[in-house]
């Protein structure tokens, strides 16, 4: 098991920081969009220039090219090579190890079994679902025999249920393999659920570690808090709520009504009504905007109250908004959580 030590590591997006990840642990860095989380992981993977010293098992790896670092990196996008079969994708991960065909095959079968995706063998990677692709990508990273695993919000693109399931599975797997892991996320709940240790990163600066609870949270994405009244519990595992005259639905988590929260990045905002079911929709007006490198933060008035939403940069560039614009909003029911 490998210990990761960062000494004054930084670049133009990350201020010099010191961090130690104990061997075999899963350490989570949590922070809002644009905080420098991905930049730090790219530095560690050898994909971005940096100053400072990166020690893995006491050995300086900061000057090594990416292919010689023995660091696994799993991002939001699985990046399965579309011209290769699922098996060839996994084999490519074992290139560095120089194994023969029989040994590669054995390792491949072991990993597919370990991740519960043996049934996908022989499938075309293009036809896989988001969760399946991410599992295959994880198997491929593990196949490369990394000493350190870097996870960049790998469950972010998945739907709520798939993400929760895969997260729990990954945690068990990581503990079983004893693989030193550094994960970044903007979701504090996810960070607390998974991490052995936790630190907060904001504007490229390490602000606080979990040893000082509360301090770190001040830098995080502040959730919207909605004071709701529970109207009824439905058989389908849902609860019907009333908020400011609007009817909302949430997953029934066995909690009585009251205050619910929704993360700004979970609210969908657009000029035109979004597709999908006719529930949890609202209309509002943009009252303030803040756009940075990774995201746009939109504050809007809905039924006289303010809601904050966060739009990813690439979505924002497709449909930028201006102050005063009328907008349509949608809250996915799994994102409305009781406090």
């Amino acid at each position, binding site marked *: 098991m490998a210990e990761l030590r960062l000494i004054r590591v930084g670049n133009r997006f990350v201020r010099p920081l010191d961090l130690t990840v104990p061997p075999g642990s899963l350490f989570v860095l949590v922070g809002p969009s644009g905080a420098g989380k991905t930049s730090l992981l790219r530095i560690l993977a*050898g*994909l971005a220039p940096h100053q400072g010293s990166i020690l893995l098992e006491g050995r300086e790896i900061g000057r090594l090219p990416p292919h010689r670092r023995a660091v696994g*990196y799993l991002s939001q996008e699985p990046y399965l090579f579309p011209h290769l079969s699922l098996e060839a994708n996994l084999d490519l*991960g074992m*290139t*560095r190890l120089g194994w023969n065909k029989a040994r590669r095959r054995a390792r491949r079968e072991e990993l597919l079994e370990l991740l519960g995706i043996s049934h996908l063998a022989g499938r075309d990677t293009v036809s896989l679902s988001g969760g399946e692709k991410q599992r295959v990508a994880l198997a491929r990273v593990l196949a490369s025999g990394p000493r350190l695993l870097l996870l960049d919000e790998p469950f972010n693109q998945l739907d709520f249920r798939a993400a929760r399931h895969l997260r729990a599975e990954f945690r068990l797997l990581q503990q079983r393999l004893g693989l030193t892991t550094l994960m970044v996320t903007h979701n504090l709940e996810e960070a607390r659920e998974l991490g052995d240790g936790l630190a907060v990163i904001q504007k490229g600066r390490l602000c606080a570690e979990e040893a000082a609870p509360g301090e770190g949270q001040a830098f995080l994405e502040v959730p919207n808090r909605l004071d709701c009244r529970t109207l009824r519990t439905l058989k389908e595992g849902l609860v019907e709520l009333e908020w400011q005259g609007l009817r909302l639905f949430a997953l029934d988590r066995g909690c009585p009504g009251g205050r619910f929260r929704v993360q700004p990045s979970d609210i969908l905002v657009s000029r035109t009504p979004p597709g999908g079911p006719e529930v949890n929709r609202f209309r509002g007006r943009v009252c303030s905007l803040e756009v940075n490198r990774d995201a746009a933060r939109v504050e809007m008035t809905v039924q006289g109250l303010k809601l904050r939403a966060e739009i990813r940069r690439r979505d924002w560039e497709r449909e930028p908004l201006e102050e005063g614009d009328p907008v349509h909003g949608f809250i996915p029911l799994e994102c409305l959580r009781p406090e």
Partner: protein
Amino acid sequence: MIRSGTGLGGLLALPLVFLGLMVAGVVTALAIQVSPAELWQALCSEETLFALRFSLSVSAGAMVLAVPLGIASAYYLSRREFPGKRLVDALLDLPLVMPPLIAGVGLLFLFGRNLLGEPLARLGLELIFTPWGAVTAQAFIATPIVMRNAKAAFESVDPGFQETAMVLGLNPWRVFFRVNLPLAGRSIAAGVILAWARTMGEFGATLMVAGATRLHTESLPVAVYLNLASGELGIAASCALVLLAVCFGVLVCLRFLTPGGGAVKRSRPWPSSA
């Protein structure tokens, strides 16, 4: 008020009909110059067969030079930043816009006795007025075509694939051969076919560097030129028809290689504005 089909749509169809008739007219005019029997005889003549063999072998030789040169340059340009990159990029495109005749004159002077000709001759390589000169001239014209298509193809590959391969442990050579080249392969192949078709029809630069000697440096376009000049319409027409067949074959190949059968996007029917 403009009506759908008979109004603006109909008006815009007229140039289309005109263009179609022009192309069909050119092909027909070439085909009716000689009777089928004369055409067959001309096709089987020693001169036509030599010109076909010469064109195929010279263009193949040119592609052997142009493909690795074009792909390697395109990869470097698409992945690296360096001072003066834009200037180099524009300079490499120059043969695309340069009149082939001027390119030929430039190559003639460059490989002539006063500059590179002498040292190359000492190495036993004569380019001027030899088939090797034709290979050089055609490679000079084809390389930028291969490079331009390959550069666009490499740039269209999400850099995330390359980074993933690097972190998975693939060295830069393997990243190129196992990831970038296959992902950009179809577009690069389309560029190579286009460049090859261009070399088959190349005339100006080849004429200047390799000359136009019957049964020595006689490519298909040179055969058309020489036989038209001497009034041998049969051989001229048959060589022209062979070239046309090659061009048509290239177009068919491109339709298969380009996503969507060559169409950028399936367009909607002409909107009704009644």
